[in-house]
């Protein structure tokens, strides 16, 4: 009973910001909103749409082609590329964005060199094409990973059946394997679309106006939280629309084979020109999306190291770590409570709690602030306090983090809880154990890995997180991510390199773990993308 109330409370707290945002339409539109709407909402919407479509097309093409090559063919370096192609996920989009601008924009080294050679008047990076390119490079691993696992888990049996019915192995791929992997590719695509819609850092650096930047502008430049809320609700509608489309597309078909352990297809050895092409293709992508950026960051870090590696830097690092740790503990505990509620069949609570993952951080920040303000005023009038109690604390920030990242912790914990069937608990009771001992001897050891995975995921994602932190942080709580935003806003690309490389190093930990998982079966227990994809599935169903 207590558990049910607590879990319901947590779920409502986490879902409340969204409802609050939607209710912003009850108040009339103010000047700021009208101004923003009339001076370019259509452009903003068009920008957003183009970006999403461009990123979707780009990542699908890249991700699926790379996955197909690495799973179907054998060539030198294949097993290296198989996992290395996931590495770009360790670089946050806003970091890749500023590196791209620093290197390839009109004032950067590449253009300067080209001008020295006589090529002037070439287009800069800050264009629609540019941002789409950066998004594609940053996000293709989502599609790649899911497509790869999809192809691997499509069994030899399916290909053999197709061949017995007259298909060559090539046409079998396109007629059987690719369609069977469609839902996984779609999940990866959904991730890309969500991340693109939610993106705030990269588009800011590119001065590319989308809904998220308009939102930010309404609040921080024009001081209208209400307008920010209204724009947020537009974004929410878009997000729900996309999720609904995806759900409809997936509806009645079943895609998994009934085999318990499908045998993978044997790989075809490439020779000659095609072998060279395969290696070159994989190498070039890895170069652009991962190796060059890392090299840039390292070189810039070395040059600014003396100046910037001081107490202030460690202060920022310390704050990033502290926030991440706090969030990880809070969120993992909440996810455990929610998981227990979900196991007892209270799926509504679970649904509420995992709602926030699909929403951009900017929205959750707005919702969090409004909610905290509301709570403060209510508490003040209820208890006759002077002044505000919750505003100015980390409350809104933690709320935003919880709304956005609860799903990350929930999924591995839920998977682990699944292993503790009601019968196992009853067996333990029949052998004389009290409830406390059951928690200690059964729950704790069996949940450990799920809890660790969840904590790791939340920790790293909170470290990288920028919009929520930027918009809700109390005075003096700058994190590494915030510093990157501030430096890039001033065009100080070189100084952004040190915090950026720090973040990348932290992100590499879960990404490497993720990349080295090979079979889909292992992937199901809690690694990030499966987690995210599963969470999308949970939300969309």
């Amino acid at each position, binding site marked *: 009973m207590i558990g049910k109330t607590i879990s319901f409370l947590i779920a409502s707290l986490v879902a409340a910001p969204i409802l609050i945002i939607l209710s912003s339409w009850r108040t009339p539109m103010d000047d700021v909103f009208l101004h923003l709407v009339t001076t370019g909402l259509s452009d903003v919407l068009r920008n957003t749409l183009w970006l999403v479509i461009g990123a979707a097309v780009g990542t699908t093409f890249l991700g699926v082609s790379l996955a197909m090559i690495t799973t179907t063919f054998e060539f030198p370096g294949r097993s290296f590329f198989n996992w290395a192609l996931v590495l770009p996920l360790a670089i946050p989009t806003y970091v890749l964005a500023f590196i791209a601008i620093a290197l390839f924009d009109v004032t950067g080294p590449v253009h300067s060199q080209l001008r020295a050679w006589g090529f002037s008047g070439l287009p800069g990076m800050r264009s629609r094409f540019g941002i789409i390119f950066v998004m594609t490079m940053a996000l293709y691993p989502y599609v790649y990973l899911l497509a790869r696992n999809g192809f691997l888990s499509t069994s030899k049996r399916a290909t053999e059946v197709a061949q017995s019915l007259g298909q060559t192995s090539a046409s079998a791929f396109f007629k059987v394997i690719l369609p069977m992997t469609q839902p996984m590719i779609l999940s990866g695509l959904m991730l890309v679309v969500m991340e693109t819609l939610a993106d705030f850092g990269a588009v800011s650096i590119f001065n590319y106006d989308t809904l998220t930047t308009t939102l930010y502008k309404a609040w921080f430049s024009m001081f209208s939280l209400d307008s920010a809320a209204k724009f947020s609700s537009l974004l929410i509608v878009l997000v729900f629309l996309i999720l609904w489309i995806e759900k409809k597309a997936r509806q009645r078909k079943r895609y998994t084979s009934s085999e318990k352990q499908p045998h993978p297809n044997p790989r075809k050895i490439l020779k000659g020109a095609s072998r060279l092409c395969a290696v070159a293709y994989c190498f070039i992508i890895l170069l652009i999306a991962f190796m060059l950026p890392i090299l840039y960051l390292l070189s810039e870090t070395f040059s600014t190291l003396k100046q910037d590696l001081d107490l202030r830097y460690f202060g920022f690092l310390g704050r990033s770590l502290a926030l991440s740790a706090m969030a990880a503990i809070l969120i993992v505990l909440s996810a455990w409570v929610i998981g227990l509620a979900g196991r007892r069949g209270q799926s509504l609570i679970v649904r509420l709690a995992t709602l926030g993952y699909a929403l951009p951080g900017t929205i959750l920040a707005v919702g969090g602030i409004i909610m905290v303000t509301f709570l403060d005023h209510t508490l003040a009038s209820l208890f006759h306090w002077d002044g505000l109690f919750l505003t100015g604390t980390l409350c809104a920030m933690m709320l935003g983090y919880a709304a956005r990242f609860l799903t990350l912790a929930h999924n591995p914990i839920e998977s682990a809880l699944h*292993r503790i*069937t009601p*019968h*196992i608990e*009853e*067996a*333990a*009771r*029949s*052998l*004389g*154990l*009290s409830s406390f001992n059951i928690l200690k*001897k*059964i729950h704790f*050891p*069996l949940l450990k890995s799920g809890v660790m995975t969840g904590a790791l995921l939340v920790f790293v994602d909170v470290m990288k997180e920028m919009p929520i932190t930027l918009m809700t942080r109390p005075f003096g709580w700058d994190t590494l991510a915030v510093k990157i935003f501030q430096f890039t806003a001033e065009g100080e690309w070189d100084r952004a390199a040190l915090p950026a490389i720090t973040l990348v190093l932290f992100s590499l930990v879960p990404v490497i773990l993720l990349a080295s998982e090979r079979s889909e079966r292992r992937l199901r227990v809690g690694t990030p993308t499966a987690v995210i994809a599963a969470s999308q599935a949970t939300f969309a169903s």
Partner: protein
Amino acid sequence: MPIIELREVKKSYKNTISVAVYNLSLSVEKGEILALLGPSGSGKTTLLRLIAGFETLDAGEILLDGRCVASEKVHLPAEKRGIGMVFQDSSLFPHLTVRQNIAFGLFRYNKNEQLRKISEMADLVGLTGFLDRYPHELSGGQQQRVALARALAPSPIVLLLDEPFSSLDPDMRSKMREDVHEILKRVGITAILVTHDHEEAFAMASKIAVINAGKLEQMDTPETIYHLPKTAFVADFVGSADFIPGKIMEDGTIYTEIGAFPNVTHDGVTEAPIVVMIRPDDVHLIPDPDGTASVVTKQFRGSENLYKVSLPSGAIVHSSEHSLVDYPHGTKVRIALTATHTVVFSASSIGGRG
């Protein structure tokens, strides 16, 4: 004094209209193996869980070894009842070895006692070399043996088994039945087994309680249940049965289309019209070109053939004959009865069965 006693136990679930267990009373003596036999949804598992303490009852009483563990006012939780439980899916603790699983309930014993018990149990179930394996490294049958060892280790008053063999392959199942039956007899423990398989009940139990829709239809030895079923439901559930209309003659014999039955040995039925229960093994076919019955279909069953025979009235009866002889479709036959018991029901009680 019975080890387990149920008095007028009643339980219903809140979100369903029907009652799960209805005024059920039974008792089990020390060392008996009782099978709760019934179709899915009949309430047998609910009953088991009530005895275990995982469910609370609405009315009635449950006594274990003379002590009241459940009533309208009292509910002793499962961990205090001293019962052992084996589930359908073994439910072994996946993070512990076989040894640790078996030792799990032995926390009240001292170190030496624990070690002794563990090897005793492992020996009993035939898994002595497997103590350091993990559950996922064992076959289904081996997992169930570990579950049995784990449940028996703390010497419970009663062992409860909830369809323990239904997740095993058929050939594994019959071997396990034999082995487990022997183990239970050797230990001498009182046990209650829930099953929907009447063959299993016959093989393992010394008493069978047939449960239907929450009610106890009959509780008797397996032989009595099979040969002298009290209700048509029981008759049909524990083996194939046909029911032929019959007429009671003045001298007490019952005249039917296929022959006359001796004096009624099964009382309680007075209202006409009546039907007589016959089993395929009671019905013998004698090929006769002048015979009035004819073979409709034949089903090969290994050692015997099961024939479907149509009678002149249109009624169907089944006959089980040794498979060395083969009567093809259309063979004209005469029927010879070898019934030793006469089981009679009122015709109205046959109709309503699903």
